[in-house]
């Protein structure tokens, strides 16, 4: 045991001396590993950043939510023309459902319209205006920067009030003070009663609440488009995650009654869930992950080949030294360990430099994409760089270990 320890220490010493003796060569060799490790760390950090962003985006939907809709959001089992031919859901459907449903915590109808919103000389184009009722807020996890959601009175009366998403408010009111101001949508004035806090669900594009405006549903039908133009979506929040399945079963049976379906007719509506979105996202992220790791793995592989190459040169150059060491009692194991140690140390240097570069680069990237190098990336970089050294150093080290001492001593 102590022998092994002394041999390891000797191996470390020799490695450092050898690296120091060939500074330029070592630096160039290390460079390959630096690039490989930088790529791996950055890629794993970026993937995690994307993953987190998706998770955050999806969580704003709420995991206990169901969305009863004419359209099926994620699964493409049903051909789209069949979905298109379904009868639109309307407010009557919603009202009947609400009356019959016992299990949900909250239900709200939504219908959207794409509009430009103006305040004085500022305007934001292509905003999703969500028409809904006062219960909508209870089907989401939204929180407020200022103000409130519109109340039952405002909703039932179809008052011209609006709740602004974070980005919309920021664009229209760069200096704040959006509350109680009148914004204009398609020529109609809407009084701002609330501004949402930032949800950061940028992965959801225009359906990101930050980019939306909420108003009582009647306003949509009154000013933007008629009721038959677009199907209503019923947002349903279950009491808790255990209740999601039961709530879904109940929704299916109620909706079949509401829609007047015979027992042998298929559903002409879909119950959508966040789960479907998660599956889609996971597939996308999975593809990015595999492609990313393959590409970065390739750059690391090139670095590893460089190390292997230089270690073969090193073994050739030091054949005589290997002979001397063998003559005075170094075993195969000792020589093998010595060269593997050397290659592992070169790679470890590369790994540390690569890690530092990755941290600096991720700080720059962080301006555009939320990334930061976590402790597990650090551990990953160190482990991968040492493993690369051990693997790429093995073949050269083995060729050194099995040299015949007589031949090696004779080598000039």
């Amino acid at each position, binding site marked *: 045991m102590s022998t092994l320890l002394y041999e390891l220490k000797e191996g470390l010493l020799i490695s450092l001396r050898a690296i120091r003796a060939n500074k330029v060569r070592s630096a160039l060799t290390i460079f390959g590993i630096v690039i490989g490790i930088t790529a791996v760390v950055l890629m794993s950090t970026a993937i995690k950043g994307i993953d987190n962003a998706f998770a955050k985006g999806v969580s704003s939907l709420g995991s206990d939510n169901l969305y009863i809709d004419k359209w099926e959001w994620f699964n493409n089992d049903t051909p789209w023309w069949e979905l298109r031919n379904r009868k639109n859901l309307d407010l009557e459907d919603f009202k009947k459902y609400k009356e019959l449903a016992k299990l949900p915590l909250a239900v709200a109808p939504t219908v959207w319209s794409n509009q430009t919103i103006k305040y004085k000389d500022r305007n934001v184009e292509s905003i999703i205006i969500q028409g809904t009722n006062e219960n909508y807020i209870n089907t989401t996890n939204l929180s407020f920067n200022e103000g409130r959601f519109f109340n039952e009175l405002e909703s039932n009366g179809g008052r011209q009030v609006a709740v602004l998403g974070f980005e919309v408010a920021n664009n229209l009111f760069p200096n704040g003070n959006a509350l109680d101001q009148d914004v204009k949508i398609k020529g109609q004035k809407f009084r701002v009663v609330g501004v949402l806090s930032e949800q950061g669900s940028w992965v959801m594009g225009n359906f990101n609440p930050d980019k939306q405006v909420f108003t009582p549903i009647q306003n949509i039908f009154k000013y933007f488009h008629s009721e038959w133009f677009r199907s209503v979506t019923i947002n349903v929040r279950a009491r808790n995650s255990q209740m999601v399945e039961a709530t879904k079963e109940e929704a299916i049976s109620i909706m079949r009654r509401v829609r007047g379906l015979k027992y042998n007719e298929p559903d002409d509506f879909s119950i959508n869930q966040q789960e479907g979105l998660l599956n889609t996202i996971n597939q996308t992220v999975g593809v990015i992950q595999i492609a990313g790791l393959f590409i970065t793995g390739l750059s690391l592989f090139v670095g590893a080949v460089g190390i292997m190459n230089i270690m073969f040169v090193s073994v050739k150059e030091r054949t005589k030294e290997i002979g001397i060491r063998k*003559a*005075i009692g170094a075993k195969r194991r000792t020589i093998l360990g010595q060269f593997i140690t050397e290659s592992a140390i070169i790679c470890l240097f590369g790994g540390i430099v690569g890690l530092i570069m990755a941290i600096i680069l991720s700080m720059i990237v962080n301006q555009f994409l939320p990334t930061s190098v976590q402790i597990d990336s650090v551990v990953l970089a160190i482990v991968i760089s040492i493993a690369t050294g051990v693997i790429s150093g093995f073949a050269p080290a083995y060729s050194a270990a099995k040299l015949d001492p007589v031949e090696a001593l004779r080598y000039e």
Partner: protein
Amino acid sequence: MNIINIEHIAKIYQVGSEEVHALRDVSLNIEKGEYVAIMGPSGSGKSTLMNILGCLDTPTKGLYNFTGVNVSQMNDNELANIRNKEIGFVFQTFNLLPRSDALHNVELPLIYAGISSHERKDKARLALDHVGLNDRMHHKPNELSGGQRQRVAIARALVTQPAIILADEPTGNLDTKTGEDIMALFNEIYEQGNTIILVTHEEYIAEHAERIIRIRDGMIEKDEHVKDRYIPKKNGFSKAD
């Protein structure tokens, strides 16, 4: 007591389709405390014999007992262990590690023997002191003269207190005067009771030994005692009659 007992060993190399008989049929005994010179022209097989004696190589045929242990069938690692503990090599080209200082070069066999750093340094210092280099411990080989380098190599050979010292043309790369100094050091080591095997082709170098074995065409041509054995006494050293 025989340290080395060789019976009918042969070494055959395969060069292409041809068999080269480097050693044909060599039998030999060397006792503890002997000072033996092995002589022969190049191609005589003396290098092959030295490699086998030094456990760097194994014979194709025959038996080699080293300190009572049969080493002729040992594997690489077992041979490495024997070389480490029982054999001290001194080479013509010194064979020191160029990037290590004298002290570390002498320490090296002790590292492979698994001896602690503290004890290693003590023993290495003692060995360097012994060969008169206590003021050159931290010099690297390229900062030392040829004679000094060979002294470091001798210290490295002595540091494990091996059963035999095997010197292959130890003065071959040195001028005559320095060569004589090195031979004087070998005499001193011999007089302290060490067993020395010297491989050389120089008659005047071989004359330092008490026994000369001449090799030709892979066989022992002549094996003669040219001097009396030097028997060290308990207090100090004196020549035995």
